[in-house]
């Protein structure tokens, strides 16, 4: 027996359907444009190549961390250990970057590996130990800081070779950290949108039980996300060490919070399953532009903190208001 004719499913405008995922980002883009225009009028220096490159350089480390932690947030987790991992990996990389020591790939690889190891440890506890991500990564935050201090004897590790400090430099006027961020973001975007594992990341965050029932190995997906996030923190640590030409065991304090803020401003849901790298980049850019603007307008750095806090809450509040 055929079912009765059913006129109930709605047919929303196809155009709206196509645009829907971008509407979110549209808000941030508009904010960026408005602030950009405002700053261009109010300050003579904002809209200059050198300043814009400066903004890009300033956001690169936060951007790399934010892209990495996007994976973790998409699975519905969180990583609070990023700042400490940045310090640890910076110290590790710097220690192996002696001018007449190993070739530069060695400190880079070791830094990334150290980060990945921290992330993998988080992943093991979260995925199979059933420890809440908040707790597991909070523990790692302290452990990684301790390891950084232990490894460096509590002192900054300087005397880095030129090949290493070159990472903090420029190629054809474009800062290398910015190129690294671009590469990392592009690869992550491709990964999340085009690969099977990327799809699984969304599925696990969107409904873990359904993902498991669909035959996805939820543990492996989480493990992957935390490990990748740690590796990217390692990369960020190397970039930071190269820029300040030392491995600082006390560096990176509270970096994880800026990174998470950028992801959340970019529209990724803290409960997982919704969002992406594009939004994260825009979020990091928005934070960077506002910081830069406040600098240019000689606003005290005390106010900058207050403004940043308001933006984080304001962005998420607007986001919530737009959702049913």
């Amino acid at each position, binding site marked *: 027996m055929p*079912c009765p004719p059913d006129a*109930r499913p*709605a047919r929303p405008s196809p155009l709206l*359907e196509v645009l829907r995922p971008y509407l979110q980002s549209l808000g941030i883009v508009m904010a960026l444009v408005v602030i950009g225009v405002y700053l261009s009028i109010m300050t003579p220096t904002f809209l200059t190549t050198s300043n814009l490159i400066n903004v890009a350089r300033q956001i690169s480390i936060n951007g790399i961390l934010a892209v990495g932690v996007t994976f973790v947030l998409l699975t519905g987790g969180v990583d609070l250990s990023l700042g400490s991992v940045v310090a640890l990996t910076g110290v590790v990389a710097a220690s192996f970057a002696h001018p007449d020591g190993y070739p530069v790939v060695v400190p880079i690889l070791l830094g990334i590996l150290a980060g990945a190891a921290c992330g993998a440890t988080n992943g093991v506890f979260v995925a199979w130990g059933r420890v809440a991500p908040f707790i597991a990564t909070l523990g790692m935050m302290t452990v990684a800081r301790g390891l950084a201090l232990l490894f460096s004897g509590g002192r900054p590790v300087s005397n880095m070779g030129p090949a290493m400090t070159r990472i903090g430099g420029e190629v054809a006027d474009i800062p290398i950290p910015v190129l690294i961020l671009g590469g990392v973001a592009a690869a992550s975007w491709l990964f999340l949108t085009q*690969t*099977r594992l990327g799809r699984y990341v969304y*599925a696990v965050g*969107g409904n873990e039980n*359904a993902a498991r029932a669909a035959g*996805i190995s939820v543990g492996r997906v989480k493990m992957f996300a935390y490990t990748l996030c740690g590796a990217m923190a390692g990369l960020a640590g190397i970039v930071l060490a190269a820029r300040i030409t030392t491995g600082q065991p006390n560096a990176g304090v509270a970096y994880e919070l800026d990174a998470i803020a950028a992801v959340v401003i970019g529209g990724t849901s803290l409960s997982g399953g919704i969002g992406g790298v594009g939004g994260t980049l825009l979020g990091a850019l928005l934070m960077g532009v506002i910081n830069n603007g406040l600098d240019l307008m000689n606003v005290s750095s005390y106010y900058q903190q207050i403004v940043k806090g308001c933006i984080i809450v304001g962005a998420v509040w607007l986001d919530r208001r737009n959702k049913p």
Partner: protein
Amino acid sequence: MEAAGAGGDARQDLAIRRLESAVTVGLSPDSGILCHDDENAGLESCPVPRIEPESRRELSVPDHLPETEAPLLEARHVGKAFAGVQALADVSLTLQAGQVHALMGENGAGKSTLMRILAGLHPPDAGEILLSGRRVAVRSPHEAMRLGIAMIHQELMPIPDLTVAENVLLGHEPTLPLLGWINRRALREEARRLLGLLGAELPVHRRMRGLSVAQMQTVEIAKALACDARIVIMDEPTAAISDREVEALFRVIAALKERGVAIVYITHRMGEVFRIAQTVTVLRDGRHVGTYPVGELDERRLIALMVGRELNAVFPAPAASRGSVALSAQGLGRAGAFRDVSFEVRQGEVLGLAGLMGAGRTELVHSLFGLMPADTGTIHIHGKPARIRCPADAIRHGIGLVTEDRSEYGLVPAMNVRQNITLSTLRACSLGPLIRRLREARLADASIRGLAIRTSGSGQVVSQLSGGNQQKVVIARTLLSGPQIVILDEPTRGIDVGAKIEVYGIIARLAREGKAVILISSDLPEVLSMSDRVLVMREGKLAAELDPARTSQEEVLEHAMPA
């Protein structure tokens, strides 16, 4: 059938029109949204009720109304859509003081939506609500309460660590004149008085935690009285209580009627309607089928109105031939869930699994699918022993599970229809790690056509679909992995009757294609009509194997009930 429904509509329309004219002539409907009149002060401010029963009865029929039969509440042409899906269209409902009005319809017919609109949980998209002839807007549960509309939810929401008295008078605590301190003695006495009005005796100092569901219900109803509710909505109040408690509830309802309260009563139990209701409104697919005095109906006719067709047309004929054993289980057990379960299912056979909730059926199939592996026992698939430790193992062995709870285990709500359908079979449409989009879209579109999933496109977010279509998405995902053994756990729960019939068609088709089907259902007519063989589970064990052709619902229940 259709003619009868249309006739009902016409009757209803006429009645409404008559009422409408009466109201427009009799009084000019206040354009203001809320009642601010003194007559309605009792509803307005909701203080600790001090109104004696006599004055309360006057209250329910304000004296300046020209006709005593002006309805207590009238909902006219109410409509509501969720994310573009029309849940309710042009539905009207008229409640008279002191009457029980049964609201009937299949799951998804729109009963809950209508009630949630009246209770202020959803704003309606269309139509208007009149209270004693006055237009009102019920914008929040709080406002509903102030207007005298109370809803007793199916899932009760008491505060477990407060006492009975504190729950009854939550938000209306009598206070001492100073500092707003709660007058505990007055609180207990008032609670006792309100419960007494319902003829219920409960220890008011007990914590809610220790109460039975039925007792909590009584507390909720007393709570409604504390707010001077004149309209009490009960959503399947007898679903989770024993027969004796049902009798007690009916006495409470009689007490409410006596006090001039209008009661909206939602139930799936036919017998109750004919016992306590005076009027019946039937909804189907979000539309108003008709409103009838209960005397005009009998059970058969009521079912036909709800379903919209004769029942025997619903279930397709079972498959004819059976093949070899597809899956056999020996001595399966899992601590605290089920034990010593052995059975087999053949190709082309539909094996029904009946039993009460909590009998271990869902746990059993979860163990077959590797969601929570069994502690003991063995599983053979096509005669070969199989170890199933996770769903991926099960899928590799050709087992597919359509899970019971769509939102918990079925769908990823933020993903679109296509992504949900292909979630288990992405490997088949990938090149290395990369997803082949075109192939994925083609697979999804074929499923959408094959199962007649109604969607604006495979890119539509799955949470926007109706329940039945969401269920079909879950089925589509399961079938896409090409299972030879298909397990369906309550596949028709919470979906409308049209979708149900389609699901029955899918099950029959699977059996014809030679797949082994295991069907869990708590709907006895469904499981008896769809299955070739029925196993009954009771308290974690197999209690009986029955031939659906030679058994009855009563016999199944006999085996399902704990001794």
